[in-house]
């Protein structure tokens, strides 16, 4: 349970860690758009450079980044294979029943997998460098305009931060319950699928019971402290847009422009690239 890296803060003092959470959120959105903009391999390389640069700046160990990829490895294999088999390409290499493996299919599925990997890396970088509290505070601040159309922005933010706060608590709880049942001779990694699923019951039931108990207690504690009695709460940490955020924004913008430019072969301005035309073509 301790090895779940997806969405886990990795403490540090780097440039990225010190950036404003709001800026990082907006930049991640920009990054996602950039990933989807990328059309040919050259623009993919630009996106990759962007991710590599961001990882270097954030000083997150590469092994940690790779672990987040490991979490979605099954999805990667699945999408890769599906796209490979069912893409209707022209240059068919191999076909059987409804499956066609074509050059276009290979290129498409490689791009697809690459896109997923880049997406996950970029977004986990956000959760690695930003505390859950930072993320929810940032989201709340970004959603402020919605308050004017009566969206309960603050409540949503509180719900989100509570949910995030409870992930490690429940994961610890799972650890504890697992240990207690193991001490009574339960084993979770032997037997077939059915017996394994059955073996989870002694964990799930106490987990649910304790989750409801905790939720009850928390609700009471919030009530007891008159939570939400005042409309505008002040903050302990006030967020500020600083030079780091400006630099980050400029960097990301540069990469977005680069990706668009590469997509269009610099609008024909850059002749020399035509010798490697196929990189643009695919």
């Amino acid at each position, binding site marked *: 349970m301790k090895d779940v890296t997806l969405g886990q803060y990795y403490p540090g003092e780097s440039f990225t860690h010190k950036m404003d959470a709001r800026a990082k959120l907006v930049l991640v959105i920009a990054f996602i758009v950039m990933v989807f903009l990328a059309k040919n391999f050259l623009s993919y390389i630009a996106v990759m450079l962007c991710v590599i640069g961001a990882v270097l700046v954030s000083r997150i160990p590469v092994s940690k980044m790779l672990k987040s990829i490991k979490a979605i490895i099954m999805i990667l294999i699945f999408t890769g294979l599906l796209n490979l088999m069912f893409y209707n390409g022209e240059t068919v290499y191999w076909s059987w029943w409804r499956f066609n493996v074509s050059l276009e299919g290979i290129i498409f599925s490689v791009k697809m997998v690459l896109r997923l990997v880049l997406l996950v890396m970029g977004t986990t970088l956000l959760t690695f460098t930003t505390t859950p509290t930072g993320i929810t505070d940032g989201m709340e601040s970004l959603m402020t305009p919605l308050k004017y159309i009566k969206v309960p922005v603050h409540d949503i933010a509180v719900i989100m931060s509570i949910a995030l706060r409870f992930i490690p608590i429940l994961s610890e709880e799972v650890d*504890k319950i697992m240990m207690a049942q193991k*001490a009574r*001779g339960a084993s979770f990694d032997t037997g077939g699928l059915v017996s394994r699923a059955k073996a989870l019951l002694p964990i799930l039931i106490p987990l649910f*019971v304790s989750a409801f108990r905790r939720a009850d207690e928390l609700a009471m504690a919030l009530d007891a402290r008159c939570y939400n009695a005042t409309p505008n709460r002040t903050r302990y940490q006030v967020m500020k847009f600083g030079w780091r955020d400006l630099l980050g924004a400029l960097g990301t913008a540069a990469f977005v422009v680069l990706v668009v430019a590469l997509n269009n072969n610099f609008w024909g301005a850059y002749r020399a690239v035509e010798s490697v035309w196929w990189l643009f073509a695919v």
Partner: protein
Amino acid sequence: MQIKIENLSYVYSPRTPFEKTALKDISFTVNEGDTMGIVGATGSGKSTLSRHLNALIRIQSGRIMLGDADLSQRKVDLKAVRKKVGMLFQFPEYQLFADTVRKDVAFGPMNFGINDAEASAAAAEALSLVGLDIAEVGDKSPFELSGGQMRRVAIAGVIASKPEVLVLDEPTAGLDPAGKREILELVKKLKSSFVKTVIIVSHNMDEIAEYCNRVAVLDEGRLIADTTPDGLFNHSDVVDNTELDYPHTVKIKRKLAKRGFVVDSPALNVEQLTEGILGRLAE
């Protein structure tokens, strides 16, 4: 069965920013028949140490010999070890899961490969040991019971597999005084039957003084004392140098001594203290 711990060390999340040393080079031996207390401040490594004893945490460095079984070996038979060493966690009532009390208590024995009839007999016996009647509560849902009853059902679930060694992690946390006494008396009763060795992890010095014949003190992952309650509370300065406290009876003895009334008794429980005071008065 003797439990021999040699040079045991443990680090949580090694080689990450979350790295935390929990145990540093711990060695001691628990003999058969001992009731050993493990005390120490929060975060001193007590729980980590106790979870090593039935291989819930695998050994990183060092060795634990459980009789002839070497827990540091990769291929140790986990089920056999866990059958021999029963472990009661803090707030065990939160681990109840089955739809009836009977099934929950029989969960352990069934896992250890006993057949249905025997497991159900073991459940009945364990429930009667903790003072519950299987005819009365056996078919109830564990979640219908009161808090004290739930804890007793949970304890029955641990002792139903008849462990030779019983490890208790804060067994009395969150109970009222009568409930605390009941649990500790139950442990005493168990020790005169199939349980040979008891290890109690506790913050409560009164319990340790009264029920243990040996006590180990952990401080920031190090073993700083391995002695008897008398040795710890009456003949050492360990308590003064750590965040531990004296048992109430010893506190009274020390206060009396400060006022010039020296009581010659270990004062580890109320009886000893009273006798000491009466003896002194009679002189």
